[in-house]
Protein backbone atom coordinates (compact mmCIF):
# COMPACT_ATOMS: atom_id res chain seq x y z
CA UNK A 1 0.00 0.00 0.00
CA UNK A 2 2.65 2.49 1.10
CA UNK A 3 4.88 1.32 -1.74
CA UNK A 4 2.11 2.08 -4.29
CA UNK A 5 1.67 5.64 -3.01
CA UNK A 6 5.41 6.21 -3.09
CA UNK A 7 5.63 4.78 -6.59
CA UNK A 8 2.90 7.07 -7.89
CA UNK A 9 4.59 10.03 -6.20
CA UNK A 10 7.88 9.09 -7.81
CA UNK A 11 6.30 8.90 -11.26
CA UNK A 12 4.64 12.30 -10.89
CA UNK A 13 7.87 13.81 -9.59
CA UNK A 14 9.80 12.41 -12.50
CA UNK A 15 7.27 13.77 -14.97
CA UNK A 16 7.51 17.21 -13.39
CA UNK A 17 11.27 17.12 -13.84
CA UNK A 18 10.80 16.08 -17.48
CA UNK A 19 8.40 19.00 -17.94
CA UNK A 20 11.04 21.34 -16.56
CA UNK A 21 13.56 19.91 -19.00
CA UNK A 22 11.18 20.39 -21.94
CA UNK A 23 10.27 23.94 -20.97
CA UNK A 24 13.92 24.88 -20.58
CA UNK A 25 15.37 27.01 -23.37
CA UNK A 26 16.74 25.32 -26.45
CA UNK A 27 19.94 23.37 -25.88
CA UNK A 28 23.01 25.25 -27.03
CA UNK A 29 21.25 28.55 -27.68
CA UNK A 30 21.28 30.65 -24.49
CA UNK A 31 18.88 33.59 -24.58
CA UNK A 32 20.56 35.82 -21.99
CA UNK A 33 24.32 35.65 -21.55
CA UNK A 34 25.37 39.09 -20.33
CA UNK A 35 27.20 37.83 -17.25
CA UNK A 36 29.22 35.25 -19.18
CA UNK A 37 29.97 37.67 -21.99
CA UNK A 38 31.35 40.05 -19.40
CA UNK A 39 33.57 37.29 -18.05
CA UNK A 40 34.82 36.24 -21.48
CA UNK A 41 35.62 39.81 -22.48
CA UNK A 42 37.11 41.21 -19.29
CA UNK A 43 38.60 38.22 -17.48
CA UNK A 44 41.97 38.54 -19.21
CA UNK A 45 42.34 42.27 -18.62
CA UNK A 46 41.05 42.22 -15.05
CA UNK A 47 42.73 39.11 -13.67
CA UNK A 48 45.47 38.52 -16.20
CA UNK A 49 44.66 34.81 -16.49
CA UNK A 50 44.18 33.13 -19.85
CA UNK A 51 41.87 30.51 -18.41
CA UNK A 52 38.52 32.18 -17.97
CA UNK A 53 37.14 29.32 -15.88
CA UNK A 54 40.01 29.55 -13.43
CA UNK A 55 39.65 33.30 -13.20
CA UNK A 56 35.97 32.82 -12.35
CA UNK A 57 36.70 30.08 -9.86
CA UNK A 58 39.41 31.98 -8.01
CA UNK A 59 38.61 35.64 -8.59
CA UNK A 60 34.99 36.43 -9.47
CA UNK A 61 33.56 33.59 -7.41
CA UNK A 62 36.46 33.09 -5.04
CA UNK A 63 34.27 32.82 -1.98
CA UNK A 64 32.53 29.78 -3.46
CA UNK A 65 35.92 28.17 -3.87
CA UNK A 66 36.74 28.90 -0.25
CA UNK A 67 33.49 27.27 0.77
CA UNK A 68 34.18 24.27 -1.43
CA UNK A 69 37.66 23.81 0.00
CA UNK A 70 36.02 24.14 3.41
CA UNK A 71 33.59 21.34 2.56
CA UNK A 72 36.47 19.08 1.62
CA UNK A 73 38.31 20.02 4.81
CA UNK A 74 35.18 19.35 6.87
CA UNK A 75 34.72 15.94 5.26
CA UNK A 76 38.36 15.00 5.87
CA UNK A 77 38.24 16.14 9.49
CA UNK A 78 34.95 14.37 10.03
CA UNK A 79 36.27 11.11 8.60
CA UNK A 80 39.42 11.31 10.73
CA UNK A 81 37.22 11.96 13.77
CA UNK A 82 34.94 9.08 12.80
CA UNK A 83 37.80 6.55 12.56
CA UNK A 84 39.76 7.91 15.52
CA UNK A 85 41.14 5.51 18.11
CA UNK A 86 39.03 5.77 21.25
CA UNK A 87 41.17 6.64 24.28
CA UNK A 88 38.83 7.30 27.15
Amino acid at each position, binding site marked *: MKKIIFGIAFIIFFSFLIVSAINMRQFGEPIFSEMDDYFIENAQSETGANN*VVTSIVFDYRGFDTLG*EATVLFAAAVGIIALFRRVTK
Partner: protein
Amino acid sequence: MIGNFPYIAAIIFIGLGIYTLMFKKNLIKIAIGVVLIQNGVNLFLITLGYIKGAVAPIYTYAPSGQIMVLPTPQALTLTSIVIGIATTALILSIAMMIYKHYGTLDTDQVRRLRG
Protein backbone atom coordinates in the same frame (compact mmCIF):
# COMPACT_ATOMS: atom_id res chain seq x y z
CA MET B 1 11.77 19.40 -27.93
CA ILE B 2 14.26 16.91 -29.35
CA GLY B 3 16.82 19.68 -29.08
CA ASN B 4 16.42 19.40 -25.33
CA PHE B 5 17.45 15.78 -25.22
CA PRO B 6 20.63 16.48 -23.16
CA TYR B 7 18.50 17.99 -20.40
CA ILE B 8 16.29 14.91 -20.42
CA ALA B 9 19.35 12.68 -20.11
CA ALA B 10 20.38 14.59 -16.99
CA ILE B 11 16.83 14.33 -15.64
CA ILE B 12 16.90 10.55 -16.16
CA PHE B 13 20.05 10.40 -14.03
CA ILE B 14 18.27 12.32 -11.27
CA GLY B 15 15.22 10.09 -11.51
CA LEU B 16 17.31 6.94 -11.23
CA GLY B 17 18.97 8.33 -8.14
CA ILE B 18 15.64 9.23 -6.55
CA TYR B 19 14.32 5.76 -7.33
CA THR B 20 17.37 4.19 -5.68
CA LEU B 21 16.88 6.31 -2.58
CA MET B 22 13.22 5.41 -2.33
CA PHE B 23 13.19 1.69 -3.02
CA LYS B 24 16.66 0.19 -2.53
CA LYS B 25 17.31 -1.42 0.85
CA ASN B 26 21.10 -1.34 1.02
CA LEU B 27 23.00 1.58 2.54
CA ILE B 28 25.73 1.38 -0.09
CA LYS B 29 23.10 1.46 -2.82
CA ILE B 30 21.59 4.52 -1.15
CA ALA B 31 25.00 6.19 -1.29
CA ILE B 32 25.15 5.28 -4.99
CA GLY B 33 21.73 6.91 -5.41
CA VAL B 34 22.99 10.13 -3.89
CA VAL B 35 25.95 10.03 -6.28
CA LEU B 36 23.57 9.49 -9.21
CA ILE B 37 21.55 12.58 -8.26
CA GLN B 38 24.75 14.59 -7.95
CA ASN B 39 25.92 13.50 -11.39
CA GLY B 40 22.56 14.29 -12.90
CA VAL B 41 22.48 17.78 -11.46
CA ASN B 42 26.07 18.41 -12.50
CA LEU B 43 25.24 17.22 -16.00
CA PHE B 44 22.23 19.54 -16.06
CA LEU B 45 24.37 22.51 -15.02
CA ILE B 46 27.15 21.84 -17.49
CA THR B 47 24.62 21.31 -20.28
CA LEU B 48 23.19 24.77 -19.66
CA GLY B 49 26.52 26.34 -20.59
CA TYR B 50 26.94 24.86 -24.05
CA ILE B 51 26.77 26.92 -27.22
CA LYS B 52 26.62 25.24 -30.62
CA GLY B 53 30.04 25.15 -32.28
CA ALA B 54 31.84 26.99 -29.50
CA VAL B 55 35.24 26.27 -27.99
CA ALA B 56 36.47 26.05 -24.41
CA PRO B 57 36.82 29.48 -22.73
CA ILE B 58 40.64 29.37 -22.57
CA TYR B 59 42.72 31.84 -24.57
CA THR B 60 45.92 29.82 -24.62
CA TYR B 61 46.34 28.66 -28.24
CA ALA B 62 42.59 28.94 -28.78
CA PRO B 63 41.40 28.45 -32.37
CA SER B 64 40.93 31.95 -33.71
CA GLY B 65 37.62 33.49 -34.61
CA GLN B 66 35.52 31.09 -32.56
CA ILE B 67 32.89 31.97 -29.95
CA MET B 68 33.40 30.47 -26.50
CA VAL B 69 30.97 28.49 -24.33
CA LEU B 70 29.57 30.05 -21.17
CA PRO B 71 32.27 29.70 -18.48
CA THR B 72 30.13 30.11 -15.35
CA PRO B 73 28.45 26.68 -15.43
CA GLN B 74 31.87 25.06 -15.64
CA ALA B 75 32.97 26.86 -12.47
CA LEU B 76 29.74 25.94 -10.70
CA THR B 77 30.03 22.31 -11.77
CA LEU B 78 33.62 22.13 -10.58
CA THR B 79 32.49 23.38 -7.18
CA SER B 80 29.59 20.98 -6.94
CA ILE B 81 31.72 18.03 -8.07
CA VAL B 82 34.18 18.61 -5.25
CA ILE B 83 31.30 18.98 -2.80
CA GLY B 84 29.91 15.72 -4.12
CA ILE B 85 33.22 13.97 -3.51
CA ALA B 86 33.21 15.14 0.10
CA THR B 87 29.60 14.08 0.63
CA THR B 88 30.18 10.64 -0.86
CA ALA B 89 33.29 10.03 1.22
CA LEU B 90 31.46 10.95 4.42
CA ILE B 91 28.40 8.83 3.58
CA LEU B 92 30.53 5.79 2.80
CA SER B 93 32.63 6.05 5.93
CA ILE B 94 29.52 6.43 8.09
CA ALA B 95 28.14 3.33 6.35
CA MET B 96 31.33 1.52 7.31
CA MET B 97 30.83 2.60 10.91
CA ILE B 98 27.22 1.38 10.83
CA TYR B 99 28.38 -1.97 9.50
CA LYS B 100 30.96 -2.19 12.26
CA HIS B 101 28.36 -1.65 14.96
CA TYR B 102 25.24 -3.28 13.51
CA GLY B 103 26.82 -6.02 11.43
CA THR B 104 24.39 -5.33 8.59
CA LEU B 105 23.66 -2.79 5.87
CA ASP B 106 19.94 -3.53 5.47
CA THR B 107 17.80 -0.46 6.07
CA ASP B 108 15.15 -2.61 7.71
CA GLN B 109 17.58 -3.55 10.46
CA VAL B 110 19.40 -0.22 10.73
CA ARG B 111 16.53 1.45 12.56
CA ARG B 112 17.22 1.38 16.27
CA LEU B 113 16.09 5.02 16.34
CA ARG B 114 12.34 5.14 15.74
CA GLY B 115 9.07 6.06 17.35
